[in-house]
């Protein structure tokens, strides 16, 4: 990876982190009246992976999707306006943080219901395959989503129909407050191999270069073979499941684990780059927040439009 690419990834990841930090700062004001599931700690692998996607490649996300929205090219102003519940939000204030989308850059939706988006990516992949447009479909979900029945249905279907789809599993080891050991009897690798789907793993999701290299390899293979693959990335959710607090005092996980990840978090360690990029990002974020603040609320007539 050359210096320029590294800096781009770093910039994009830092931008997401700073957006999340802005949300943390704004949250007590009650201007954002909606649940937020922060991507903070999980930005690195997202920017490294999405770097290799074309604008028209299709992605679907879980409710923890601020990172993917921004990395794919979603409009920051429309995102803040959406969080503020304003008319200028990307979904006119109807979707909120949990359902970000941006069809103009290929983000076709997110779901707050765990595991729900897996089959959407398959349907989109089927359409891409029929149209022979060379596009891939990517679905990003957490480790907990692999416990849903629909995930298993989708592994079978993706393999059976030979769909050009990448399942990205962000493994932060937690489902709300439940540890992986409490929830899973299977190894994801063994499971996916039973369905004949190639499995890839990166143990350190904070390693931009590693994720970037591996993503390139996986995605070019999918483009070439037009068949599915699964990519598990181990990472760390810094904050609580929903909301803007740290919850290491609640007894279900340790502060030591957090400290271990932080100690090698490029967005913390590489102070030089942070200092270099911060002013420009800060400016962009302030403008976006100001846009949201000044935007009008949706009018009452909007309540009943677009139902059917």
């Amino acid at each position, binding site marked *: 990876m050359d210096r320029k690419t590294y800096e781009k990834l770093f910039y994009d990841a830092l931008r997401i982190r700073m957006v999340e930090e802005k949300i943390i700062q704004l949250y007590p004001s009650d201007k954002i009246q909606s649940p937020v599931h922060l991507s903070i700690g999980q930005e690195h692998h997202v920017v490294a992976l999405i770097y290799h996607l074309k604008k028209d490649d*299709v992605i*679907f996300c879980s409710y923890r999707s601020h990172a993917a929205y921004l990395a794919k090219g979603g409009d920051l102003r429309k995102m803040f306006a959406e969080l503020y519940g304003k008319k200028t*939000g*990307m*979904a*006119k*204030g*109807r*979707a909120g943080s949990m*359902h970000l*989308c941006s*069809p103009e850059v290929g983000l*076709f*939706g997110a*779901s707050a*219901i765990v595991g*729900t*988006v*897996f*089959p*959407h*990516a*398959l*349907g*989109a*992949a*089927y*359409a*891409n395959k*029929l*149209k022979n447009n060379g596009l891939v*479909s990517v679905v990003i979900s957490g480790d907990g989503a692999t416990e849903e*029945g*629909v995930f298993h*249905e*989708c592994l*079978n*279907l993706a393999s*059976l129909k030979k769909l050009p789809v990448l399942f990205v599993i962000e493994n932060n080891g937690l489902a709300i407050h439940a540890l992986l050991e409490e929830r899973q009897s299977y190894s994801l690798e063994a499971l996916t191999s039973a369905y004949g789907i190639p499995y890839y793993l990166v143990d350190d999701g904070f390693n931009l270069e590693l994720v970037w290299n591996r993503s390139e390899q996986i995605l070019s293979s999918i483009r070439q073979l037009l068949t599915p693959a699964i990519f598990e990335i181990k990472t760390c959710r810094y904050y609580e499941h929903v909301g803007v607090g740290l919850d290491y005092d609640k007894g279900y996980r340790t502060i030591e684990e957090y400290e271990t990840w932080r100690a090698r978090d490029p967005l913390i360690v590489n102070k030089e780059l942070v200092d270099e990029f911060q002013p420009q990002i800060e400016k962009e974020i302030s403008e976006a927040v100001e846009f949201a603040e000044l935007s009008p609320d949706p009018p009452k007539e909007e309540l009943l*439009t*677009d*139902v*059917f």
Partner: protein
Amino acid sequence: MRFITYREALHQSMRSALEKNCNSFIFGLGVTDHTGIFGTTLGLEGEFGGDRVFNTPICEEAMTGFALGASLRGLYPIHIHIRNDFLPLAMNQLINCVAKYKYMYGGLFEVPMLVRAVIGRSWGQGGTHSQSLQALFAHIPGLTVVMPSNAKSVISTYDYVVNHYRSPVLSLEHRLLYEYSFTVEPKSEEIINPLTSFLVKEGSDVTVTATSLMVHEAKRAADFVKKHEAIEVEIIDLHCVSHPDVELILRSVKNTGKLIVADTGWAPFGVCAEVSRIVASADPSMLSRPVINLSMAPTTCPTAKALEKYFYPDFGDVVHAIYTLVFETSDHGKELPSEEHKASQYKEFKGPF
């Protein structure tokens, strides 16, 4: 004018969908087997290819989400279930996603699709092959629910939704109707929105609003009471239960003062409750007698014939309800249709499925 069966109308509609809408594709368990969803998809795989007509693994949720993803990318999915009792396996996708996609994303997306599902009845269909779940779906904003009661309805509705309608549609087809023949007039070129209710027959004494198979039971009842007591029944086929023609219903009830709601499902929180709500909210004083609801018995369907015969509403129940309203007592003493007469309509359905 010509005669065709409900089954033939469905097959014709499926074929026409594939022919007219090049983005459409049909899938579901059994779509390409030798039975072809009771004959309604037979031969289509051979004619249009396996990419557009295919069998699926048994995974209702994944296939429904798959339909949504394909629809988002410009395809028109037609997803078929041999019983609507399998739809609960797809509820997450239907309720949390398909119904909400357009609204929740501020109108940025549309997810047009057609989901066909069959309602079973009689011959021991039992607890999970006999339900009529329209109320569950019509309750959810964003889902358009139709219950075509005849071949013409099938043809006009499916042609409209596949080629001209941009919202998801769930169609519940009654298994017993598959065997019925209907007259079908030559199709007019004009595009008429069939997502509403229809006046089946005018009459000044009693209004019967009905769904699906119960439209036929209402017609049989209307013939019976006209012949025996010279009673004139007005029948409204609710058809699009999520979007009933409220004006048509109110105008009729205002005229007759008497209302029967005959539905294939359960009454509480269902179509019966909804039509009663529509009338009560508009002007309850237009009713000269209390509303009568005809529905499945409020329990799970038993398989034993001895119990099953009391479970489903039939044409005898409609006749009894009409006499009860007209003669202002349930103790009217009038002759009701014989068991043989009631069963004659169903003789062509001999199960098992």
